[in-house]
């Protein structure tokens, strides 16, 4: 489903995408289009994109094509989703221990929408860290 979403092809574009969004959240998925995890995540993103378009824009970045952020944002997972608002990286307390990003594929569109909404609300209030509506710590998986 990656072809339904806008790709960014170099670091400059990534920076511009984050910079030029004044009112909306910028959500960037770092990963590879061919990766199964990314495919699952992209499916969710595509489903959510239309519903979220009023307050959020979603981009995809291939981390082989654009390796510039790999070290800076520790892009070692198959799929990473990060949130930016007015050139500020917004952190989320997901309960996983890594507050910087979502580094797994979310299958539930509504859950993702909820997270984005929470991030947006927090970011609008000037928060740098928001608490996810659901706890994703591994103890709830089993």
């Amino acid at each position: 489903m990656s072809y339904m979403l806008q790709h960014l092809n170099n670091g400059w574009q990534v920076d511009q995408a984050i910079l030029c969004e004044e009112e909306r959240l910028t959500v960037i998925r770092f990963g590879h289009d061919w990766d199964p995890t990314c495919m699952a995540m992209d499916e969710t993103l595509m489903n959510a994109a239309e519903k979220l378009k009023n307050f959020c824009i979603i981009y995809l970045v291939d981390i082989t094509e654009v390796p510039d952020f790999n070290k800076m944002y520790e892009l070692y997972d198959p799929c990473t989703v990060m949130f930016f608002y007015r050139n500020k990286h917004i952190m989320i307390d997901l309960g996983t221990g890594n507050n910087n990003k979502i580094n797994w594929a979310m299958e539930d569109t509504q859950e993702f929408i909820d997270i984005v909404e929470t991030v947006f609300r927090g970011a609008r209030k000037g928060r740098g860290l928001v608490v996810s509506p659901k706890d994703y710590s591994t103890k709830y998986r089993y």
Partner: protein
Amino acid sequence: MSVQSLVNKKKKDFIGLPSPLGYVPGLGRGATGFTTRSDIGPARDASDISDDRHAPPVKKPKNDDEEEEDLNDANYDEFSGYGGSICKKDPYDKDDEEADEIYEAVDKRMDEKRKERREERLKEEIERYRQERPKIQQQFSDLKRELKDVSFDEWSSLPEVGDARNRKQRNPRKEVYTAMSDSFLAKAVQQGQSSTAIDPRDQKYGGLDTPFPGGMTPGGTTSTDIDMKKIGQARNTLMDIKLTQVSDSVSGQTVVDPKGYLTDLQSMLPSHGGDINDVKKARLLLKSVRETNPKHPPAWIASARLEEVTGKVQASRNLIMKGCEECPKSEDVWLEAARLMPGDQAKAVVTQAVKQLPDSVRLWIKAATIEVELKGKKRVYRKALEQIPNSVRLWKLAVELEDQEDARIMLSRAVECCPTSVELWLALARLENYENARKVLNKARESIPTDRQIWISAAKLEEANGNIHMIEKIIDRALASLRANMVEINREQWIKDAEDCESAGSIHTCQVIVRAVIGVGVEEEDRKHTWMEDAEASASHGAYECARAIYAQALTVFASKKSIWLRAAYFEKNHGSRESLEALLQRAVAHCPKAEMLWLMGAKSKWLAGDVPAARSILALAFQANPNSEEIWLAAVKLESENNEFERARRLLQKARTSAPTARVFMKSVKLEWCLGDMKTAEDLLDDALNQYPDFAKLWMMRGQIAEEEDELDKAREVYNMGLKKCPRAIPLWILLSRLEERSGYLTKARSILEKARLKNNACPELWLESVRVENRGGLKNIAQGLMARAMQECPNSGILWAEAIFLEARPQRKTKSVDALKRCEHDAHVLLAVSKLFWSERKLGKARDWLTRTVKIDPDHGDAWANFYKYELLHGTEEQQEAIKKRCINAEPKHGELWCKTSKVISNWRLKCEEILPLVANALSVPT
């Protein structure tokens, strides 16, 4: 900011563009990274952009361009020499390089000299060090090895560590809320008025801690202009701020649930709804009542209740105790006091109360209920009975607590004290043995001559001890003595008693009561009607013996009434055994020998039981009673043919033809011959029959069908045409002809035949249906729909047409059509079946089952519905459900239904039973789509 302003905010003109030359991603917008997972990826390089979030405060850069190196002697260290190099600023030239090399070589040489020894010593030292202070890992290695023996259960049952902190630390004190001062509120008012925009400082510090500008200035708001409304608003504002603050703290963890907090506040309100002023007023009023009229008990009770409602239990107790002092003779006050007092005090109050009022039953009962132990309760009741020996209520409560033997003794005393209580008498009789019980009941009768229950229980008692002859006497005497004592005999009550007797197992008593009482108070002309109603009512209550007795009584009175016999026979068939049914039928035919139905029922019952000779003899007797009865002839023929006595059947039919030559007899004869394959005789018979009864359509149909069967289509056509001339109203004949034409490939001819039929038979839904189907089979869907519309206009209430119409529609419209159909023919089995098929096709299985059940309930004679239901259960139901449907179908014995008849009327199936036809039809069915 500066970076953002460079970007065009409206257009995204960066998509697909290459990056500018030398652009460093991330740096361009001042991004900062983070380090959380240096374990798997490289931690950041020194050249990377630092994480500003954790950066130490940047020191102010010094204005001096460079700090000079400290070359002072004070900086000299014995080991590393001087702090800096004097020659640092000089260029590094060839001489320097050479010198460095030489130094290097010397160092190396010196190093190699003692290398071996040094390394050995180092190793030794390390070993010694390890021995002295082993690593924790090594220290525990032996214990760790033992861990493998720990089982999973032991792991899981490891005790929790527990919280070793003391209680104060474990449960941190809750936040303490203190009332706000008015000056603070006034400030808040000001805030609410003046600043609508959020002060950035407010935002930063969380609003409340901000010093309010201008709030402290004296004279800005004086105490004169504080009005309560504004203060109330201000309080709300403050509360709101406080709540949002607590609930939305920066850490994101909600400390106080605002909703719960508010409900907490709600629950702190006084529980009663009234206003405090009202309570005060009421208190005042009640006080004045008490003082002016202290001997008025309700005033005291009302006062105590008021205090109780407002939550002041102690005050209410005090009041009621005073009330007890003032009005010691009021039962109500004492009871209220006992209710309000807790445990032991209540007991004390009650003892005082019974001292004051020893004759109050209610007080004694209260006293007993307050007692917790059984023994105490018994004691209280005994004392009470000493005081009030004639209270039935007390006796009953006291007896309930005793065991059987004591209860008997107490009851014998009780009936002496309260001789008019029927319940006590009956209870005593129940506990006594037979002889004593008789005595008890006799005594009871003497003391209460007006109660029927005693008589009935006496009758029951006799029956239980086998004295059946006594029952009748007792009941007769009961009626006589009750009448003598001016008691009106109520038939309904007595019949109800009879039903109760039956459910208690006293069948004889029940019968005797019915016999004695059934005629009481019924007008001569109403008798039959009323009795039948009574019998049906009893049967529906499940009191079959009672109903049987009523029928028996009715039959002795109306021995020659056929309808009563029939009803009694149906009752026996439904609820009785075969023997009772046959006995009843025998008596019935003796009384009404002309009732063919009764004879036939008797014969059928015998035949079903497999007793063919008995059935034959019954039919023979029936012949004697009703010579030349067509029904009995045919029944006899059926009996013989079903039992493979074809010769006898033929002879019987021959006799029947001569003595009772009706069309039906002829038809049955032809059918028999046809079934037995004797076509020649069948045709001869048909010729004969048609000469005599040319307008009996079924004969024509048979003839035509025989011709069709023998592939003589022209002959069949001719026969049908002749038949139609004689009987133009025979719908099946028309349809047969049209099908014949259709089968021979003449669609137009079939159509015209049906049109002619419709002309001759107005508003006949069957013909319309056939026309529609002809078109449908011919593949002309739109013509079929047009025809259907016309058919609907002519017969708007025909279920078969609606059912067909539903499935003629395209799938999406079917639902609306079915709703229309249900509106028109709510109680038509065809429509219901179509609707259930619709649900079935939509795979709404539960609904389909409901509707199928409804269909077979509304018309149990409709074979198609049963077949569909069976098919449905075969596909979707369990084995039990399939069996249940089959059984129900066999009970219902369906005869009609289009597909059902198609299968059941095929000559080769002529002797199949219902249970064999059902699967055949179900197999022929297609699952609705």
